Structure formats: C-alpha cells, structure tokens
C-alpha cells in the first residue's frame, strides 16, 4: 500500500513537472537550458518588387503571328522545330516565325523585342537544356 501511494505521488510530481500551468509541455532540462538569449537575424534585405500586369491574351491564334524565340541553350532549336510543326498542323492559319536570341539565358535583344512588338501577336520564349 505504501509503495502504491509512493508511486501515485511520483506520478503526480511527474505530471506537475512535465506540464506548465497552461497545460503545455516544457523542457525538463537543467536551469542553463531554460535561459533565453537574444540573437540577430543573419539575413540581408530583399529588393522591393514592382508588380507588373501581364499582357492581354489573344481571342484566337487563327490569322495571328506567333514568334518562337530560342534563347540559345542546347536543344532549344530542335524543340522549337517540333513545336512549330505541331502548330502548322493544328493551326494552319497561324504564321510561325522562329528567332534565336543570343546564348544562354540572355534577355531578348532590343531589336528583337521591337520586332515582336511591331510584327508579332504573341511569343513563346524557350529555354532548351
């Protein structure tokens, strides 16, 4: 009986130690672990972002000029060739223009940008790889 009472007391003490007044578990380590310190956030500062709307979409591709722009990674030319073939078969009224724009991920040149703005209706800009 005495052993049983001792067990109940230990159990109650255990519960008391393991739960905070709000009933949430706390760390049961020594006093050093409970000490809090303040440290700095090591991150830099991201730049602000200016939101830009996307251009309005076309109502149809029929009769429109679609530019395929290959940004120059290996394989982009072959990929765009098979894609162009698909458009020619499925959208025969769509004019396809294929262009290459520099090497790698370089942005479109101002001249090509102007050309698409002036003569194109939409563009697909592709990264091979």
């Amino acid at each position, binding site marked *: 009986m005495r052993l049983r009472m001792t067990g109940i007391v230990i159990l109650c003490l255990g519960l008391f130690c393991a739960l905070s007044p709000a009933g949430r578990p706390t760390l049961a380590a020594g006093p050093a672990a409970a000490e809090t310190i303040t440290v700095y956030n090591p991150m830099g500062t991201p730049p602000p*972002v200016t939101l830009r709307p996307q251009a309005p979409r076309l109502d*149809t591709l029929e009769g429109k000029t679609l530019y395929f722009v290959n940004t120059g990674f290996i394989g982009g030319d072959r990929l765009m060739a098979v*894609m162009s073939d698909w458009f020619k078969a499925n959208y025969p009224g769509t004019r396809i223009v294929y262009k290459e724009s520099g090497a790698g991920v370089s942005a479109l040149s101002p001249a090509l940008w102007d050309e698409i703005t002036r003569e*194109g209706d939409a*563009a697909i800009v592709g990264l091979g790889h």
Partner: protein
Amino acid sequence: MKKPAVPLILDDFEPQEREVASNLGMPGLRMQFFRGPVWGKTPAQLQKQVIEGNNPVTGKPVMRELVELLTRPLAAGEQKTGELRRDAGPETYTGTPDELHRLFLEKRYTDFLPVVLPTEERVAEMLKFTSRRPDDALGRMNPGSEAGESWTYTVKTAAINAVMAGADPEYFPVILALGSTGMTAVNVSDNGFMAGAVINGPIRDEIGLNYEEGAVGPFARANTTIGRAWSLLSINGGNCGKVGTTYMGTIGNPMNLIGIIMAENEERSPFQPLSVRRGFKKGENVVTLFMGWGILSAKNWAATVWGPNMDYPGIIKEIYGTQDGHLFGTCAVLSPPIANFIRDAGYDTVEKFTEWVTGQAPGAKRAPAGPEINLGVRKSGGTFTVIVTGGSNNNYFSMGGMVPAQSVRIDDWR
C-alpha cells in the same frame, strides 16, 4: 512588348522560375513546363516527350495547354500593379540556445553544421575590428545569374555571419573584403560552380592562415572560418544556396560547403605573388576571388604516371590541353617543389611559363565565349592561372578550372 508571351521551361526549374517571376513583379506569370532535358534528343524523342506529353506540373497536354495560356483571358490577379515591400523577418530572435539552433536550421540560416549564435556581445566584438559603421552598406549579391534578384547587406550583416561561422574577430577585414565584392560563394548554376579566394601579403601570418601542408584544406581556423563566413554571408546576406530557388547544382559541389581560402606560400615560391602579378605592390594585403569548377589532385590525370624523371612543365601543359577553355580556363595550384621544378626548367616567371603552356603571349585577349559553345565547338585550356601554396614534403599539385575575378585590398576594410 505588351504582347502575350509564355516562357517554356523544364519542370525541374519550376520553383526557381516562379520565384524569379515573383521577384520581377509577376507572381502569377503564365509559364509552360515540360519534361526535360531536351538536348541530345532526336525529333522523334521530342515528339513523344514534349509534343505528345503532359505538363508534369499540371498533368495537362503540353501543346493544348500552351494554346490556352496564350488565349484564356487574364484573371484579376494577373493584372495587379503596385509595389511589394518585403523584409527578411524580425531583427532579432529570443529563445533558449536549443530553440534558436533549431530555428536557424528550420529557416535555413546555416550550412547544416552547428553555428555560433550571433548575440549582441559577439557581434559587437567582431565589429571592433573594422572602422566601418555597422549600418554601412557592404554589398549587393545575387545567386550568380542575371535571373536572380540582388539582396543588399551591411557591415553588421557580415559581422553576424562571421560570428556564426566561428571566425575570430581579427579575420573580419578579410571577410568584409570578400563581402564587398558581391560575388557569391554559392553560385546558382546547375553546373555546380564553386568559389575560392587567394590571400597575399603579411596578413597571412598576422591572422594565422595556413599556407604550408594542407593549405587548400580545412586545417587552420583562419582558412576554414573565413571561407565559411563567406558562404554563410552568401546564404543569408545574398539569399543564395536555397535548393529549388537560388541553387540548382545538378549534382552539387562539395566545395560549396566552405569556399576554399588559400594563402600563397610567398616565402617558398620562386615566382612573384599572385597579387603582384595582378598589379598590386608587394607587401599589400590582397584577396583575389576565384570562381569555377574547383580543383583536384593532378595525380588523377594519366599524364602524371610516375616516372624516374618527371617532366612537370610538360605534364601541366598536357593537362591544360584537356581543360574546358570556355568558362573558367585552367588553374594550377602548385606546391613549392613543383614551382621550383618549373623555374629550374627555364621558366623563371609565371608569365614565361604561361606563354609556353598556352601558346599565347602575355596579355593576349581571351577568346570570347559566344554561341559556338552551344554548337559543340571545343576550346581547350583557356586562361591559365598559377597559385603556389602548400608544403614541401612531396611533389604534388592540383589542377582544375578556376578563373580569377576581382582582387580587393584587405586593409581598406580595417
């Protein structure tokens, strides 16, 4: 151009490209994803893989969805304007050390090794080793690609990351010099680029940089923690090295853990120090940054099969001919005995040796890396850089692809 456009992108790049689009102000940019890679594939293979395939992200047929992306009217969320101001969280965190270590891991503030927590006292101690003010702008860094956004950081940000790296405060001017360049130690490229730096001048002994045995390895606190501070500053100050968004190394590179910090063994080298060859005065404390694939023991090349009379200049020239000359050229990290072999063979300056190895006169312009790289045109060797460091206990050297970038005076950051 005010015309509808859709980027075609491999599905593996989806998280990164969505982040790039958000950073450029178009968080809902319409993109079309397909299964890659496409290079090396025949038209028939591309037909099956892409034309008849589904977008791995949405599960829809690639070509039909592409048409839809160009023709479906825009939703209101796709036409938003205005400015988004962002921050990188609170200035400080409070908790027990265990909680803070967990938090730093969860937030990916670390390189997954334990860090020294950057308390106010520790950061203040670091800042004592520079005359710069804590809030002075130090640098602007992107992950190494024009596609990535550039974050800014201060002298204090560098001090915080230097503390985390376990750096002694007397190393801080070197860390500031590295941070001032804006060059990341953890480049985004799927190639898995690494970064390193070479230090010249009396500061090598002043702060205990190792340039004897084990010079390019983690065998001195200064070399190791300066490199780690640069890596952590890149991860945190420049938001680099986040897999899926700002890091894409296909296999990765073990040299991304800690940027290699080499001090030249000027005392045992028969040549002028690298910094002097780059226009600085002898005795100036200079750090020169490098970027590339990395280096490894030249013993692994067939050219170095043991023989009774090793022709080291010839071996180096042969290895040079096997290197990719397009991006980073060739870098030879020579132990002093190898450097002396080269001098004794009649090349008493690095310039003479370089001219013989590359077949080009000193100062010859490097051929630009242009579209020919994607046409399968091979150009071997490229630029050739010599660094002398390490011990004299044997005839070893390392080679690989690393090209020098900026050189910075360290004393400007004291």
